[in-house]
């Protein structure tokens, strides 16, 4: 039957459409991951490539968890992971505190101003990321714009050390990742029915109470998405701490870079990368399961 044939072709296309993202993940995520995993189980050698093959000349498996064991025994790595977690978490909270009111304001402004404000949020992306970080160096160094302004105003008489501190890293992270927080927040807040907030007030909730009872829980999907979009890249961030942070502020992105390119210890670097991935994947899976449960409840 001709109808049947069309059905079959439809189904074939549907399969192709579904297969594309899976194929993409397979080629660009799973395969590289397998390679990194393989390298992390090898030993470093001075050769090309700089690690031992998984199967030696006798065809025997030569893999060891030595690199992971080393990561656990050397305190440097644990401390660096924790520091990175702390920096990324702080940057995420900063972005949330700054981004929420901004997203709320944009979502509640009239449509004409709204698109202008959104444009302003996205505008920094038109300039190279590196240039923007360099600009912050110019702003924050000892004879930079901020210090000069404060001296001129008479607030201080000696320049304060801003650049090469954790403070500078936080400024850099918050500045760079703020749009990733604002955009998903805006998307959820803009969809929210304003009647709900008024209904809460009508039923006896003050403005603040109505915010915590209605706006905040309904904005949660946006908050979670924004936090993940900031936290994940901030965790592995290399450029911002390298340019703005002090020499003592060792973060995991930096360690990864050094192990790969300075020490040329690919197996150890791979192990570092895999632990980082696990650190990121576990909370994401938990969050997603939570969200799926929420949606299951709502349906």
């Amino acid at each position, binding site marked *: 039957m001709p109808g049947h044939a069309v059905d079959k072709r439809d189904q074939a296309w549907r399969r192709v459409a579904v297969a594309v993202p899976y194929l993409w993940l397979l080629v660009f995520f799973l395969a590289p991951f397998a390679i990194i995993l393989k390298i992390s189980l090898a030993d470093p050698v001075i050769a090309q490539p700089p690690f031992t093959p998984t199967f030696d000349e006798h065809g025997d498996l030569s893999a060891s968890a030595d690199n992971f064991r080393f990561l656990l025994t050397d305190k440097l790595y644990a401390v660096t992971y924790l520091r990175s977690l702390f920096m990324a978490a702080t940057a995420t909270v900063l972005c949330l505190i700054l981004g929420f009111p901004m997203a709320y304001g944009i979502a509640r402004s009239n449509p004409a101003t709204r698109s202008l404000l959104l444009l302003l949020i996205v505008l920094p992306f038109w300039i190279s990321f590196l240039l923007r970080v360099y600009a912050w160096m110019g702003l924050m160094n000892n004879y930079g714009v901020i210090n000069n302004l404060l001296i001129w105003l008479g607030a201080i008489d000696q320049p304060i050390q801003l650049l090469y501190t954790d403070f500078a890293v936080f400024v850099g992270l918050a500045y760079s990742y703020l749009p990733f927080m604002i955009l998903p927040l805006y998307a959820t807040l803009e969809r929210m*029915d304003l*009647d*709900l907030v*008024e*209904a*809460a*007030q*009508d*039923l*006896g*909730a*003050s403005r603040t*109470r109505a915010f915590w*009872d*209605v706006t905040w*829980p*309904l904005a949660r999907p946006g908050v979670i998405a924004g936090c993940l979009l900031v936290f994940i890249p901030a965790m592995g961030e290399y450029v911002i701490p390298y340019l703005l942070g002090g020499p003592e502020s060792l973060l995991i992105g930096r360690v990864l870079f050094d192990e790969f390119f300075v020490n040329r210890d690919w197996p150890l670097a791979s192990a570092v990368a895999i632990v980082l991935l696990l650190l990121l994947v576990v909370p994401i899976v938990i969050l997603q399961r939570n969200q799926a449960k929420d949606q299951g*409840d*709502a*349906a």
Partner: protein
Amino acid sequence: MNDFIRIRGISKNFGDFVAVDNVDLDIARGELFSILGGSGCGKTTLLRMLAGFEIPTAGTIEIDGVDITAQPPYRRHVNMMFQSYAIFPHMSVEKNVAYGLRKEHVGRKEIAQRVDAMLELVQLRDFRERNPGQLSGGQRQRVALARALIKQPKVLLLDEPLAALDKKLRERTQFELMNIQDELGITFIVVTHDQEEAMTLSTRIAVMDRGRFQQVGTPKEIYEFPTNRFVAGFVGTINTFKGRVSAVAEDKIKVYSNETGVSMTALGKQLVEEGQQIEIAVRPEKIFVSRDKPDGDDDTCLQGIVDDLGYLGNRSLYRIRLASGKIVQVSSQNRRRSVTRFLEWEDKVWISWRPSSAVVLLD
């Protein structure tokens, strides 16, 4: 007795736009009062001022002797049922209904009792654990009603309460609303654009246009004795004839119209003078159609041709064309059972109405 709600000189401007223009209104305790008007007439703004979401530009609102003009919404003993129902999507039916009491810090036990009673009243007992997403339109409407009523407000505001429901459900819900209002004795103020809804629900109606009340009265007064052209045209269908007052007697006037070609008689000691330009308005169901010239001393009788007709089962609608080209709408009950039509297109007919059916409109 008539001053449970006292609205005095209320105005609301948005920039240059005057949404509500110097409105006075008294509503008695226990009334089911409707504010009827088209979109943008200011009815919703007036309701929002009663709820506390808009602060009036001028004027005062008193409820039960207390001036609430500047009170925030959460302090007023006034609750609102939103047009969208505004049910919290992240709370179960039960939690939605209990929300208002929790904000009042009512004890756990009392909340449980009152929620039970309220869910019983709106027939949602079996749905208490459900999420709003799992409810039908009618059920959502009842959740919204229960959530507002549980606060035992002095006044319940309803913004287009039935607009989101389909026709069948709307009719049933109308009567449910009236029963609940009757049972609880709470004063209801309903905003609606649907004249039929306003007519069946309300004890009194205010017809609103361009920020002002055009007429306030019982449904009957509004329909049978509209005071101006807007009210006459907005509520129901009406035929109007422009004319000039040709004679003024003790209890009736005569009006000559070029559109009818005859003098029409209307009752009442109207404040009109001879020669004044006015309009005579007649509802379609007050007009009789016949093949022969009807008799009646003061009745207005006009000859015309059937321009169009429509059979609706219980009644038929006719559009009668007069010699002047004016079209008159007539609605007549189909009292006799017959498969042949009483009138056909292009039939010559007489139409007539009694002097008491003619409404005099001055503006």
